[in-house]
């Protein structure tokens, strides 16, 4: 076994070994479960070592190019067969680095975050299971192995959203996530059937070599079906409703699964198949529209949310929308770029929110412990995630406060922080499509929507940060003396915050826009390192804009982001969220209420899908089935001669005798058959 195969095995296998060891260990021995830190450290090692292996493999790819490792056949179906094979190339390495790198930090953070939770052993086993599945997804050499990971992350997500299973709403959220993902998976499955029928392979290289031979119809349908699959997994309109509910899981889960990694799988998949998608402009257009629509809708909802994690959840949906807009604009590198930068600043923001929630919970519980029973009945209703109860946290948690601001500025698109570069690149590509031949005006509208959403992003993020950390503490009003219990989170939690904050500042520099240098020197530049690295996997459409236009767009991005932050700070900077929100509600009226009610999408699904399905099941099929059975039973009951006979035997109680009797009879027949030669001679 060569070193590369060995390292690939470590990368793919160690998280599974971790999940298995922790799971079986915790299950087999109840006292072992109490060693929460040990579980955490082992789980972290099972992600950190693969991170190192990824670095080694990456270096190998850099030096000698992409390669595959094959662990035998996965399914052999006669006409086609699929190998348990993995593709190690720049794109998969990039994703694996994000997964294991940020995964390691989040594991470390979880050691502190889960240190008081009795279920920590389960938590770390699930987390390792997730890393395993996610790596299957991004390293796969074919769609079917990718699908193992695709649904595997769904399982991990289901288990972790419903982690605190005693609360019914958590399980409901977990089920919802799984079922909505399954809607997408249904489309994905049909896409695979279609590909097997038309091309006869699910291997990426085989598929992409044959795209030229696929008919336009096949390209369209496969593209559309894969897109629907990605819409489910990556929480796009209209299937995004599960993601905000998924915040029921522990916060590190929200950071890792529902922000940094799992929800980007759809983008990864489409980028992987980008040479196929670019041949179907209609699908690209639909994708761009879905992306822009999602980005805008989610941003407007985030504007009105008061739950710190829900704001971040809608913000994630919105940023994923940007990434789909990038895909639809043929900017695959930019989409992956935004995946990477977003992974850093969104993980940072979520972990920051976790730190805040941890602090709030602690303060509420500690203060409530002091208060005598009956003195403050309202205390039980305090939601530690409600930003209306926060404010003034900058004093007690300086590290969380500073790193949170870094995350906010990064997502808002303030240069030179990470979000600026990736978002600017996306919008530039969309603008470029806008001046192109196919559906130009439409893309121009999408570009405008994108710019508007960029403004909203900066605005709602400043609203969130200011309301949480600035102004005066409002918890005291609900629970007197609670603010004195505030404290910064432990080192295991602040260490990842700093790492991610540094990442959020500098990671954007791996994708510096080439035109900046090109316009100055007049020669082709190669300062967009990510593009140099993954261009072979991402079939980007060319940008055909003049340097002047590109500079103007760059300036426009900066202005919009700065305006957003400025207006946001003016409206919320002193903790005046109440006045501003009321003012917005008064100004926008019904529109604001639509945002507030989340466009009634949940209600729509409940009324149009959930209830009819249940109604048909309960009021049509169940009675039909029951009456069918009843009728037949009644029919046979009427033929009493038959049933009476059976009844008597059954009630006689001499069952042993009867059984022996019957057995002897059958044995006699069998003996006749076996001993046939004695009677009849050889056949």
């Amino acid at each position: 076994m060569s070193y590369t195969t060995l390292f690939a095995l470590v990368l793919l296998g160690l998280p599974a070994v971790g999940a298995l060891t922790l799971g079986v260990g915790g299950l087999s021995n109840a006292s072992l479960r109490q060693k929460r830190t040990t579980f955490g450290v082992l789980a972290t090692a099972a992600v950190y070592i693969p991170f190192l292996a990824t670095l080694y493999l990456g270096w190998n790819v850099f030096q000698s190019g992409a390669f595959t490792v094959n662990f035998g056949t996965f399914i052999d179906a006669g006409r086609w067969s699929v190998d348990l094979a993995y593709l190690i190339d720049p794109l998969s390495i990039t994703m694996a680095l994000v997964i294991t790198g940020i995964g390691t930090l989040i594991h470390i953070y979880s050691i502190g975050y889960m240190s008081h939770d009795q279920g920590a052993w389960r938590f770390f086993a699930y987390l390792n299971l997730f890393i395993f599945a996610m790596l299957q997804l991004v390293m796969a050499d074919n769609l079917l192995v990718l699908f193992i990971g695709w649904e595997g992350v769904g399982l991990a997500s289901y288990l972790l959203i419903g982690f605190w299973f005693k609360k019914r709403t958590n399980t409901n959220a977990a089920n919802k996530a799984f079922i909505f993902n399954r809607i997408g998976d249904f489309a994905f499955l049909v896409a695979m059937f279609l590909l097997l029928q038309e091309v006869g392979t699910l291997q990426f290289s085989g598929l992409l070599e044959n795209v030229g031979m696929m008919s336009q119809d096949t390209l369209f349908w496969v593209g559309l079906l894969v897109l629907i699959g990605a819409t489910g997994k990556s929480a796009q309109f209209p299937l995004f409703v599960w993601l905000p509910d998924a915040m029921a899981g522990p916060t590190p889960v929200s950071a890792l699964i529902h922000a940094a990694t799992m929800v980007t799988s759809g983008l990864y998949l489409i980028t992987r198949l980008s040479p196929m998608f670019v041949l179907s402009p209609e699908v690209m257009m639909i994708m761009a529209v879905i992306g822009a629509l999602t980005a805008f809708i989610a941003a407007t909802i985030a504007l009105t949310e008061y739950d710190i994690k829900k704001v971040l959840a809608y913000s994630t949906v919105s940023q994923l929308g940007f990434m789909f807009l990038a895909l639809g604009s043929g900017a695959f590198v930019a989409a992956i770029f935004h995946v990477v930068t977003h992974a850093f600043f969104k993980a940072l923001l979520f972990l920051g929110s976790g730190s805040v929630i941890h602090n709030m919970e602690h303060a509420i519980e500690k203060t409530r412990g002091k208060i005598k029973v009956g003195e403050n009945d309202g205390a039980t209703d305090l939601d530690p995630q409600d930003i209306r109860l926060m404010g003034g946290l900058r004093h007690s948690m300086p590290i969380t406060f500073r790193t949170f601001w870094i995350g906010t500025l990064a997502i808002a698109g303030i240069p030179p922080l990470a979000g600026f570069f990736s978002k600017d690149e996306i919008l530039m590509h969309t603008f470029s499509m806008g001046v192109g031949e196919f559906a130009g005006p439409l893309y121009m509208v999408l570009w405008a929507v994108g710019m508007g959403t960029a403004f909203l992003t900066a605005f709602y993020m400043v609203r969130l940060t200011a309301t949480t950390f600035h102004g005066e503490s409002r918890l005291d009003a609900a629970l007197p003396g609670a603010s004195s219990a505030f404290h910064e989170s432990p080192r295991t939690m602040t260490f990842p915050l700093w790492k991610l904050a540094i990442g959020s500042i500098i990671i954007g520099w791996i994708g510096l826009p080439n035109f900046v240098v090109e316009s100055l020197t007049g020669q082709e530049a190669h300062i967009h390192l990510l593009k140099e690295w993954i261009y072979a996997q991402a079939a980007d459409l060319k940008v055909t804009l003049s340097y002047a236009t590109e500079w103007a767009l760059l300036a426009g991005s900066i202005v919009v982001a700065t305006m957003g932050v400025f207006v946001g700070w003016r409206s919320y900077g002193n903790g005046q969220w109440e006045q501003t929100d009321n003012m917005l509600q008064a100004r926008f009226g019904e529109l604001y209420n639509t945002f507030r009610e989340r466009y009634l999408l949940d209600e729509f699904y409940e009324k149009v899908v959930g209830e009819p399905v249940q109604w048909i099941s309960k009021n049509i099929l169940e009675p039909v089935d029951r009456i069918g059975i009843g009728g037949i039973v009644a029919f046979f009951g009427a033929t009493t001669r038959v049933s009476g006979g059976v009844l008597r035997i059954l009630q006689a109680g001499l069952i042993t005798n009867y059984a022996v009797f019957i057995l002897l009879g059958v044995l006699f027949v069998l003996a006749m058959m076996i001993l046939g030669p004695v009677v009849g001679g050889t056949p």
Partner: protein
Amino acid sequence: MVPEFILPWILNLSMWIPLMGSLFLFLCGSPKRGRIMAVLFSTLSLVFTVVLTLQFMTNYAASVQFDSVGSALSESIRLGYVVGLDGASILLFAMTSFIGWVAILTAPKVFARTNNAFYGLLLILLGASLGVFAAQDLFLFYVFFELALIPMAFLLGIWGEEERTSATYTFVIYTLVGSLLMLVGVLTIGFTAASLMEGVSFTTHFDDLMAAAHLFQELPFWVFGSFLFAFAIKIPLFPFHSWQANAYAQAPIPAVLFMAPIMVKFGSYALVRFVIPYFPVLFAQVTPWIATLAVISILYGAMIAITATDIKKILAFSSLSHMGFIVLGLAAWNETAIQGAMLQMVNHGLTTAALFLGFGYVLVSNPSRNLMDHGGIASDRPVLTTMIVIASMASVGLPGLNGFVGEFMILSGAFDSSHLGTTLYAVLAAIAVILAAMYTLRLLKFTLFGTPNQTPSEPTGQTSDQLLDQADAHSAAQQPKGWVLSLFVLLMIWIGFQSPTFTSFSKNWTSSIVEHIEQIGSFEPDFEPDNE
């Protein structure tokens, strides 16, 4: 590995040890040792089966292995004891032996009123079920098929829950009506096939029948129909499923472990092993109907399970839905779909057995079958919870576990099937991946998660005596943890990642049978399939 001449003996022993052992239990087993003897017999049977399976893996032959021929009744009546295993039956045989062993081993943990007669009947069931898959003679198949019905009728009728009597009627009469019709079919093709052979007036050897298959295409349709009807009931296929939910709900768990995972396979095995190979032309004519019924079964079962409240009935309707996939795979009739269906028969067995056993552990602590009376099992019983969750995921077809591989092969085969001629069946059937998630996760939500529900509202379907018995057994057994289910989980993961190890068993057999059918299709120039 093992000397050739011993192998037929091992095969015979693996079937006859349980069958004869039951006699031992009825006649002279002391009440205390009943369970030990039963476990011993079934363990021996399992060990022999494992030997056979490993031996089979040395060549993965398409033809019958380990066969022993007990000769015929007479030279002119070729009807006799012929047993052996081939690519179609070996895995089902092994699965039966394994699940039967688990059922007998765990019986006292999931059911309080076991006694020698109970174990004896389980042993007959085991032996007869093994016989069904080992028979290489259609009449012998029929004998074992009927033999398995008898102990099940008693297990259901005596040890069942409150509505056991009506459940037993429907179960017995349904199956009996089907199989009696089939008997007429057996006789008809037996005489027809004999016309090819000199000096023979009747034959039911599989080989003889297969050689005469081209003659069967001109028989009246009802001959083929009688087989189809019998096995449509057994599988069951909508609308012949009415016996199923009640029988599963009323039967004691050890009996359900035979009924749901094993006995329904008699039907699907018979379809692929001889019904379709004997009547390929006629089958091709009814393919759209069969596929339609299969898709209806899939969606209908899943839809009812979405709001059903009886735990065992939810599993029953889930089973109805999943068996539909197998029938769809057989109807699609290309190599991919058949291979998928063959694998899915084993998968369905493992998954269904694991779920019924897992929920058997749940029901023994709280006998109400209404899922609203349960909850919070995850708090006290993490091992059981983990196993049930994994088995449920296998049932909803999560890739990496066994169910996905079979379903994917079936559906992609059906999508691409020239027999079905349209992708519609596969696409409609695939909707079940969404529905399955809906009903399965709902079941888990109310049973495993939430907070424990200590006050069962209205114990359904059990007498107070039974409840008392079960409560005693429960305290005595101190809530079995459920580690035995990890055996199923290991197999699920193994099949999930390394399916070729398992599909290899039937691969050669499948290609030879597909070839055989193509031959028959071209063998009969006079026959016009479209001229009904």
